[in-house]
């Protein structure tokens, strides 16, 4: 029985610290290493190596054509003083906030409504609400551009119909940010609602029954049972929306182009990174910015982790 692997649960694997024994195990299982290796090989080449390379790049001034120039930490200093970089961070956070808060609130409400006991056609609603998420961001941005158009936009038509003055959505930075946020909300509310719904359906019904017997009101049940039990799911959606929100690129890029629009209201961090690299050909500086982005995401992940840990205690 040469080259036979140990199928889990079939044989008791003897735990041994003997090095030669471990080596024997590895040799015995060598075909398995082969079968799981593609991921690691490809990750080394196209995942890890580029990241290490981006460290080198961030110390270099390079336009992609001429000789790269070693400049030490000067690009990091430049980044910290770069007003446009800070503005892009601010824009990203504004858009993230304006999209995540309504998105998750709406998603929660929708999940509750679909989950109501006496509702029929749940499946239809699930499909209906999930549909926007299947659409490409490019298509969404193209369609929303016509809805938010300054001149022929449908929204401005309705605004004037209601006796309000039209808004220059794509010209004024703060309205542009609202327009971008609305795309995110439209595309992701249903997705989050589906996840909340699955979370709600996991809550045992006898908890609700017990609360009812104890005379709890609907509001009390909601805040004392539903929200605490749904908490892990809510944390998951907050984390994914944060990571997604910080990487926002396609929505503003297709909506108003590489420049971030008039006043630069749509210039997100990743759009700024892209612009430095592929429009201005400052590869080195773009790599520096990507480390800035990495730092921000890392800080957020740590905050998230701390919050989750505190909740668990």
């Amino acid at each position, binding site marked *: 029985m040469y080259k036979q692997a140990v199928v889990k649960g079939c044989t008791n694997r003897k735990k041994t610290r003997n090095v030669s024994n471990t080596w024997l195990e590895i040799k015995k299982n060598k075909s398995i290493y082969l079968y799981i290796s593609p991921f690691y090989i490809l990750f080394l080449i*196209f995942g890890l190596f580029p990241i290490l390379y981006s460290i080198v790049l961030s110390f270099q001034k390079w336009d992609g054509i001429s000789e790269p120039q070693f400049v030490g930490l000067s690009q990091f200093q430049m980044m910290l003083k770069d007003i446009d970089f800070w503005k892009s961070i601010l824009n990203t956070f504004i858009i993230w906030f304006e999209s995540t808060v309504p998105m998750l609130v709406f998603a929660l409400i929708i999940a509750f409504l679909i989950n109501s006991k006496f509702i029929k056609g749940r499946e239809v609603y699930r499909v209906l609400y999930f549909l926007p998420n299947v659409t490409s961001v490019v298509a969404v941005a193209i369609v929303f551009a016509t809805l938010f158009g300054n001149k022929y936009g449908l929204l401005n*038509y309705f605004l004037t119909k209601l006796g309000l003055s039209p808004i220059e959505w794509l010209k004024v930075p703060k309205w542009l940010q609202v327009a971008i946020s609305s795309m995110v909300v439209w595309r992701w509310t249903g997705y989050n609602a589906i996840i909340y719904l699955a979370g709600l359906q996991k809550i045992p019904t006898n908890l609700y029954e017990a609360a009812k017997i104890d005379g709890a009101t609907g509001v009390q049940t909601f805040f004392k049972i539903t929200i605490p039990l749904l908490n892990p799911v809510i944390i998951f959606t907050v984390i994914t929306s944060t990571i997604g929100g910080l990487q926002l690129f396609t929505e503003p890029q297709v909506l108003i182009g590489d420049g971030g629009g008039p006043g630069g209201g749509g210039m997100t961090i990743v759009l700024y990174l892209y612009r430095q690299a592929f429009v201005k050909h400052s590869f080195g500086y773009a790599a520096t910015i990507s480390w800035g982005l990495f730092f921000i995401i890392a800080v957020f992940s740590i905050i998230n982790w701390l919050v989750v840990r505190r909740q668990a205690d």
Partner: protein
Amino acid sequence: MERKFSIWKVIIHFLLMIGGIISLFPFYWLIVTATRTTTDFMRFPPILVPGKQLFNNMQNLFKTIDFWGSFMNTIFVATATTLCVIFFCSMAGFFFAKFEFPGKKILFSVLMATMMIPSQLSLVPSFIIMQKIGWVQSFKALIIPSIANAFGIFWVKQYTEGAIHDDLLHSGRIDGCGNFRLYWNIGLPILKPAIAFLAIFTFMGAWNNYLWPMVVISDPKKYVIQVALAQLNGVHKDTDYAMVMTGTLLATIPLIAIFLTFSKQFISDIAAGAIKD
């Protein structure tokens, strides 16, 4: 009691329908603008019902860009990516779930950790690497790196642990199956539902991918559909809305069709992938 319930029912349905209309309206508007002329589009008050100009718009579209070329490129890239992903992920997921080998824990932790890395971090260096190895303008640059799909392996592993019993593999082993045959003959047929989800999910992701294809491919003959659309929009959005919207409609329909076909299972799996702990 009966009446109170039915009033609530009406209110809930009413609210859900408002949300449903908001979900659907952009699609409806896309159909309206794609079946109207650009002059119709600029009319005030706007026209809100579909017209009959779709074929005219399509002819304009096909004259302006090589739409079917981009369409076929996308089908090729998305299909190749999907096939590679489901093969390599189901294989790795299966062996991670059912076999013990030294270093397994560490290897799997590394795999999970790679999911945390934001892909933009490596955007610029990845492009430079593609330049160095001559993959710029090549579909290889779109397909090969995406095979390293940690989520796919995780997904199949989770499913395998619940779906394949150890005894089954043990008896396969007694029948003389090698490791690969255990995966191929016993594992794969059972893993079909998990693989189906992974296939649709990967295909959709590849179809909708934009940033990376835009960066590595600048030859219009090799554009994938999202890049072609964005270019079309950039050049013609102020002159021929109807054509741009027609292109957008045609590029969106295939995914909607796939989604509607498998929607029930797909939505359940999306939720399962998210709340599994």
